[in-house]
């Protein structure tokens, strides 16, 4: 029986395997080389693959994302690390104006991954806790994945590296060392664009992703004791959304709660709500509800952060409301 490894180790394993498999894969980022990255995701890569394939960069998010695009045009498969995903904002222009449009406007491929530690619940404050996925989901030409399990972290990273287009790979730092899994044998690749049923249920559906998958599962467990059967759908990929899986769960339970750690206004819950409304309005027995972060920059102090971010009790409360509607 293979040993369990953490979510973080699963990502590292994917990087190792892909760099061994394909010499065009290389890593680029701040402090990723000898130091192994702020969270040690890339630890050991430089020792194994050398400085030319594990490149320590200046503090230059625009440059490393742009350079990855240029290298991608020439047939390389760069994996860029954002030290914290919050800093991806610095590369917003390069990602949205250059990378996302390159194939469409110029037939130039950008097979690249931009990955980084994301999310809160870690007392990281306003600039080390963000979930900036919504702006990129909104941009045609980018793919966005955000795994919740160690198995998916590995399998989706391998899929992202092999994808012909740019994939933004959000890694939840709360899950890095808390979540473990046993990796399936062989070349474990999880397809981009496919959601996963994390728990089967019949009364209410929760659609969520990343760290709040576990809050949703906790809530489902509590509610099961009160006779409410909750289905939890883990999206895994945010762009493109798995419409089939979303619609299937709505048709099964007829009640939908969407949970995300990202802020509320303009978050992906609104988009899912619109799609469900357009595609299976008559299957709904209750309004679609959202449990999300408040529209607040994420504060540092535990009572403040805990208040702003979605908690299990919030989900329980929302499910009860839906179940009794």
């Amino acid at each position: 029986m293979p040993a369990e490894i953490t979510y973080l180790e699963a990502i590292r394993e994917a990087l190792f395997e892909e760099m061994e498999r394909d010499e065009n894969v290389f890593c680029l980022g701040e402090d990723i080389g000898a130091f192994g990255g702020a969270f040690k995701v890339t630890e050991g890569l430089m020792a194994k693959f050398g400085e030319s394939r594990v490149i320590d960069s200046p503090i230059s998010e625009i440059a490393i994302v742009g350079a990855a695009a240029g290298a991608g045009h020439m047939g390389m498969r760069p994996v860029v690390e954002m030290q914290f995903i919050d800093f991806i904002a610095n590369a917003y222009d390069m990602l949205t104006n250059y990378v996302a449009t390159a194939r469409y406007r110029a037939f130039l491929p950008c097979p690249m991954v931009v990955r980084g530690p994301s999310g809160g619940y870690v007392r990281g404050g306003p600039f080390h806790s963000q979930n900036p996925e919504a702006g990129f989901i909104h941009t045609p030409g980018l793919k966005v994945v955000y795994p919740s399990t160690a198995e998916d972290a590995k399998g989706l990273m391998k899929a992202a590296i092999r994808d012909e287009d740019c994939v933004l790979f959000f890694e939840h730092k709360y899950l890095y060392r808390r979540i473990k899994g046993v990796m399936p044998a062989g070349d474990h690749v999880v397809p981009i664009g496919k959601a996963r049923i994390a728990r089967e249920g019949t009364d209410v559906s929760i659609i969520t992703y990343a760290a709040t998958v576990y809050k949703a599962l906790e809530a489902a467990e509590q509610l099961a004791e009160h006779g409410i059967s909750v289905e939890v759908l883990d999206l895994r990929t945010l762009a493109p959304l798995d419409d089939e899986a979303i619609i299937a769960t709505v048709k099964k339970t007829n009640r939908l709660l969407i949970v995300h750690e990202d802020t509320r206004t303009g978050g992906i819950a609104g988009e899912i709500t619109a799609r469900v409304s357009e595609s299976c309005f008559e299957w709904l027995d209750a309004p679609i509800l959202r449990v999300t972060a408040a529209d607040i920059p994420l504060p540092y102090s535990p009572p403040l952060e805990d208040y702003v971010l979605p908690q299990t009790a919030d989900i329980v409360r929302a499910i009860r409301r839906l179940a009794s509607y």
Partner: protein
Amino acid sequence: MAKAPSAPASATDITAATTAARPSDALTRAQKLELFYWMRLTRSLEEKLVNLYRQTKVVGGLFRSLGQEADAVGSAFALGRRDIMSPLIRNLGAMLVKGATPLEVLKQYMAKEDSPTRGRELNIHFGDTDRGFIGQISPLGDMVPVMSGVTLTFKMRKEDRVGLVFVGEGATSTGAFHEGINFAGVQRLPLVVVVENNGYAYSTPTAKQSAVKHFVDKAIGYGIAGEQADGNDVLAVYDAVKRAVDRARGGGGVTLVELITFRRRGHAEHDNQSYVPTGQIEEWEKHNDPLDRYLHVLKTEYAATDAEIQAMYDRIQSEIDAATDEAEKSGTPHPLDSLVGVYADPPSEQPLWFRRDAADNDAYGAERPESWGTWNVTKGSAS
């Protein structure tokens, strides 16, 4: 008031500018005539585009490089066939040298279905990595990081290739320029960064763009080589860029080349240049036109005859006329082609439901009867 091109500044490594041997000395007479051909072709093609623009056949904006043909042509002429260049909006001449054809440029401006970008992009925003030029985007400075990635690949693969990226003096104010050239410098990449200092970024004069007097001085801050040349002297441009290209190819890293020139037309054709002091444009036109200057050199130093020059004009005219006739015959893109190729997978987006008709349903599958939605989710979801 026209200002004579400044003398080389006290930047690093520009001593080469004063050494005796000029790279252009190695060019043949035929190559020297060819330089004039590319400059004249650029100007004549743009003049044709002005006509088409006034006939509204150019459906978007028109960008001229009038007065800057030497800096574009001389720079690109210093590159090898497998080298890759990223042109900017005033570098039509550089693209022609690298193999772009007048027909492609005309179709692109006229937004034709078989234009290089199939009608997706405007003006000279197109590329071909095989011929060695990559299409620019409108946010300025972005191509510096991108070209650092292209040349990083050359370095990683130990390929004997060089990259060249054009930016205007205005783009040196962007974060992308700074991050890209700094990264390229640190990595000692085989990259030439050409800063075309043409006096204005849209309406903003150089003095409001930067406190530096000479943009070549920025090379010092990045620890890279610098070159400065008279951008309206095609051989001086060639010399400076060729030195930079040779340095890059020889493992000497990045060079910032400042080419001093002047933009004699507006940012685009709609721009009346009301912000330019009276007489300045005329002064450059009269005394510092790159074609006039080089024609004089060709006649006095290389014995170019009137017949030779006339034959070149005739050839250019017939090439442009033929290309225009052919470009006009091309059709406009099919609207549904707009949905194709955002991603490799899926290869096409689907038409939104309010843009579908029965024929589209044949192609994409009918929408489910209960759905007013946008997405074609048919599998296992029959009502």
